[in-house]
């Protein structure tokens, strides 16, 4: 039951972080100029109408009271009501979450499909021209702006060639698979260079370690060693890179969802910010923060499973 205790402990440690995140968002969004009631009423609102709406939404209460109410509701599992959509936020988020999860999972898979073979190729003959090329590409890709990449991919692989839908979420599994390809590729290409660098470095380290040298001397083939020892060990830092990248994924989804018109959480967040829908912004940040924490816990568990040397504490 150590794994369970580990998870419980990590979640407990995560709790102050989550509270901190909600508090920070709460303070920030209330500092930003702009008023949700005014925004909802449009350009022709009278001051009375704005005041009435503020009262209805409880925005005329003091800030600590508003935050208290938010946390109080949260304790009962209620995320509150969106002022701009006039709907409970739970279902709103639930509808958006699959899009963002699709993007993150799909991008992770693509990043692995790109990164693992390239890292393998590079590490097989370190110092060779393939290695040089892979290394250069991974260095170059570090400075790749995802918004720029997204625009160009949408135009060239989407609109011009018609190979993939340039925008939208698509219908059904096959539809999602093709619609989400370009956005996921955009995110994946942001993470792949890190993955390649980590994997390559670790593979090289393992390849020169004693037990691999021993295995080789026992007559195991180069690929056999690769598969059995090196790859498995190299997965550990690779996994760490991916786990740590989750907060990057989440950030990237905001820009990528905007460019590819995906109705995900990042898009909801941007809309929430622009309409000053405080409840939505708070709730989405909360969900995303939880996502980051959970993914990190899963990654640590997986690391422990892959590499028994690392003790899961």
């Amino acid at each position: 039951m150590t794994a369970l205790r580990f998870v419980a402990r990590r979640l407990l440690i995560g709790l102050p972080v989550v509270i901190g995140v909600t508090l920070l968002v709460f303070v920030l969004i209330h500092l930003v100029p702009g008023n949700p009631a005014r925004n909802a009423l449009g350009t022709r609102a009278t001051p009375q109408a704005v005041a009435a709406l503020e009262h209805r939404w409880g925005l005329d209460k003091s800030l600590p009271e508003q935050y208290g109410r938010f946390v109080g509701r949260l304790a009962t599992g209620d995320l509150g009501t969106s002022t701009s959509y006039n709907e409970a936020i739970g279902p709103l988020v639930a509808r958006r979450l699959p899009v963002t999860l699709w993007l993150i999972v799909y991008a992770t898979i693509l990043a692995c499909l790109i990164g693992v073979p390239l890292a393998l190729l590079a590490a097989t003959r370190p110092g060779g021209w393939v290695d040089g090329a892979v290394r250069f590409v991974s260095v170059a890709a570090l400075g790749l702006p995802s918004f720029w990449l997204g625009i160009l991919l949408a135009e060239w692989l989407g609109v011009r060639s018609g190979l993939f839908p340039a925008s939208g979420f698509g219908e059904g599994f096959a539809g999602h698979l093709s619609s989400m390809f370009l956005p996921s590729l955009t995110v994946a290409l942001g993470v792949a260079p890190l993955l390649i660098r980590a994997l390559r470095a670790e593979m090289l380290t393992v390849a020169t370690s004693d037990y691999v040298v021993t295995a080789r001397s026992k007559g195991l083939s180069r690929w056999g060693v690769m598969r059995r020892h090196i790859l498995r060990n190299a997965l550990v830092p690779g996994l760490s890179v991916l786990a740590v990248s989750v907060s990057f994924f989440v950030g990237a989804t905001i820009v990528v969802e905007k460019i590819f018109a995906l109705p995900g959480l990042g898009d909801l967040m941007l809309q929430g910010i622009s309409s000053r829908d405080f409840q939505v912004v708070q709730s989405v940040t909360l969900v995303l923060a939880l996502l980051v924490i959970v993914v990190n816990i899963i990654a640590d568990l997986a690391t422990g499973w892959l590499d028994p040397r690392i003790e899961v504490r």
Partner: protein
Amino acid sequence: MIRTALALLVAGALVAGCGGESSSKSSGPVQKGGTLRLATLHDVTDFNPFTMTDNDSIRAVSQITEGLYKTDARGKVVPWLATGDQTSADGLTHTMKLRPGVKFSTGKPVTSSDVKWTLQKVQGGETWSFLMTNIKSIGTPKPDTVVIKLKQPSAALHAVLALFANGIVPANYGGEKESAFAQKPIGTGPFQVARWDKGSKVVLERNPTYWRKGFPKLDKVELIGVPDDSGRISQLRGKQVDVAVSPPWPQVKSLQSAGGLGVGIYAPSQIRALALNTKKAPFDDAKVREAVSLALDRNAMIDAALAGNGKPAGSFLAPSVPYSSGEQDGAADVAQAKSLMQQAGNPTATVEVILPSGEQVFNTVAQIAQQNLQAIGLKVKLVSLDQAAALEKYQEGDYTATVTGITSDILDPSELVSYYVASEGFTTGVDTKPVAKLASQAEQEADESRRAQLYAELQQKVADEHAFVPLMAVPYSYGVSDTVKGFAVNGTGIFDLSNVGVAKGS
């Protein structure tokens, strides 16, 4: 007065029909049934017709409810759920008979009490009541007769009744709670709400009880919110949607040449303007304001921001609004502007101009204005704020200058004029008493030509303040696939989907 046909410019393959079906290059007859997928700027944010204010919500609810009067595709206000209006000699009592056989989508027939309840709801509401202040009482002598009594005669009544918010809904929300009704509004229109995925799309389905036989042609309409300009166009080009609102102007030309689709450019009914706060230096000096207006190169703005599709605006009333003084030639007079600046003592302070971020047209216009003003010695600092923050600063008068826009929701000057009066000249801080007097005279005037004259005078007065400086009139535009037939837009930029069909094989 400019009350021309509203399908002013028709580009590409699309012919924006005037009600009827448009001819199209693509073959195949208009299908009965089918689904139209339409990409809007945003999803519906509010489905309560009494409180909504944004274009996309208005576009959606306009397919669901209908008013006593309606603005048609030619830009005329025509009787719709009313068969006509018998006006008393003093112009104060309007007796309207309801069209027989009209039912709500629930199957319940429309009666005068539904009309009364709806209009009173608007009158007592927070959002649109300012248009209804002239209504003294609403009588229901018979189930099919409504009598509207006014405080003063008004030529704007029919246009006001055509406002989307005055679309008739069942009295007391048909027995539902307001919150439930606001999820699924009920009306007499061609469509009803099938599903609303908040934040992404609304699915409408045909209203089986619709009173116009043979309409609507479509079975289903999906209104999909796609906030990103390029995203909407990508989806149109990729045939993921059939219609996309407001394609980015720079792409209009290439869209037209792409084949398979066209871009309909309709009445120039949105005004973009530069609002100058007359309570802040240097714009407290009328000479400086006039110099600004003279220095602006409106034609360059239209070329760069709208790819040439627009008109230099001469009034806060768009050319599509009746009695608008409409257009001007748009040429800048820098020499005159400079001499005015000199008379004003060449103020040297840096002027902050608020730029609502994320919108290409505003961005371009603001940067051209910046260069224009620098040419007459006014240093400009652009402060880019997101729309919500920009709106707050503007409405609270906490700004020096800002680029902004305004659109009329009815085809009558009274809406914007009364807002101008009530808001100190669109929050520019000017004295609006002289305008208020003219406005009430004009609204009561029964004689067309006299009314036109009064409105011309009123617009001149507003223009002479040079506080709300009109820049250009922007048309509504829609990218439409060739498979779509009969797509039409009225003078307030709202489409009517009852006549629309999709060709077979799409």
